[in-house]
């Protein structure tokens, strides 16, 4: 399973959205119906699944599906 697939699976599970909705440019808050707590929960899910920590200042840069994938790649996760 590729990194993209893993990330999208987590998003689908946690936000209860379809695969079709999880396009790279989809915004969590504007397109996927997430509120601020959903977003925190999603990030906690990513930390759990990929065994890493996302600092609060890095969190502010994450707003779309692509942002999460790019961030994980920048941490050397594949």
């Amino acid at each position, binding site marked *: 399973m590729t990194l993209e697939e893993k990330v999208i699976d987590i998003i689908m599970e*946690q*936000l*209860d959205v379809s695969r079709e909705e999880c396009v790279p440019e989809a915004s969590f808050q504007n397109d996927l119906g997430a509120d601020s*707590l959903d977003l*925190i*929960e999603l990030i*906690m899910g990513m930390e*759990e699944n990929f065994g890493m920590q996302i600092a609060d200042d890095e969190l502010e840069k994450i707003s779309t599906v692509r942002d999460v994938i790019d961030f994980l790649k920048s941490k050397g996760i594949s």
Partner: protein
Amino acid sequence: MKRRVVITGLGAVTPLGNSVKETWEGVCAGRSGIGKITKFDTTGYKTKIAGELKHFDPLNFVGKKELHRLDDFIVYALASAQMALDDAALTIDNAIAERVGVIIGSAIGGLATLEREKETIINAGPQKVFLFTIPAVLANHGAGQVSIRFGAKGPINCPVTACAAGTNAVGDSFRIISHGYADVMIAGGAEAAVSPLCIAGFNVMKAISVNNDYPEKASRPFDRDRDGFVVSEGCGILILEELSFARNRGARIYAEVVGYGSTSDAFHMVAPPPGHEGAARCMQLALEEAGMSPAEIDYINAHGTSTPLNDVYETEAIRTVFGKHSKAIAVSSTKSMTGHLLGAAGGVEAMIAVKSVYEGIIPPTINLDHPDPACDLDYVPHKPRKKEINTAMSNTFGFGGVNAVLIVKKFSE
């Protein structure tokens, strides 16, 4: 001028079934809902039995994402409120939203979530705690989630008055409508406390039955061999409406709420006083509000927990209030079948009192094989009784010396 308040909808999930219909059929059949605990491993626990819901599918009532965030007691409240509103054929639109309130009591709220997340702190550290821990644990979130889901914008509250919470919720809702602060109230109690801490906590107090080999016989109110109550989970919700509001929309009326009593023992942390003066006074106050004499009560749905103390003291309190008439009243404890739903008991038992008036059937007290000599009333043993009932009283008493009593009456113009 006080306004009249009627009941137009009922909803419930209990150990006897996942609807009012199944629960009512269960109590009329004298069926026990008690069984082995499946919610956690009971190795090392003195009590291994409880009244759990069976085959309840939460996804019939909440989405997958929502389910994962809510404690069970909130899910039970949402399910029961949905069924009660459907039963009342009531849709809350913008025109009435601000006149619809919610009061759903709970004794201990999201205890199971609290226990689980304390383990998360111990095992994985404080940063790993479930994001929705606090809203899942808060006892008022049964009422909160129901108001959000159905758009009820009127008064909201959550009595946390132990085993009287459900009755306080219905009684306070009755007064809110009667005094004009709302036209409709969604009222009852929700509980999901079949959890390690709850069972262990009641066990060390010797408050609950240890009759693990015969779960269906464990809850035996007024019987000489009773050895404590049985913890159960579930929810009971009633829709209360101001009479003309109900009439104008052509609602079916089950019964009228006519009296409510609320008193405190001011005596002991968990024990009732001998003779249970606080309970007697509570029944008297409800009768006064209803403008009724004791002889007008046909049926009492007793608190009847199956603890050694309660059943004798409640009997004494009934004798105090009803005097000679006490022998002529049918008194039954449906906890013999449902077990004790703690903060939800008052909601479920108010529903049963309403159904008994509406259907003309008194559910029995099962397992009353050898009545305690100190318990000498007509407890409707073993079998239900068909009888025209004009008025029913529902008693609930809680730790902390809380007493709450409700009186419902067959509706007539």
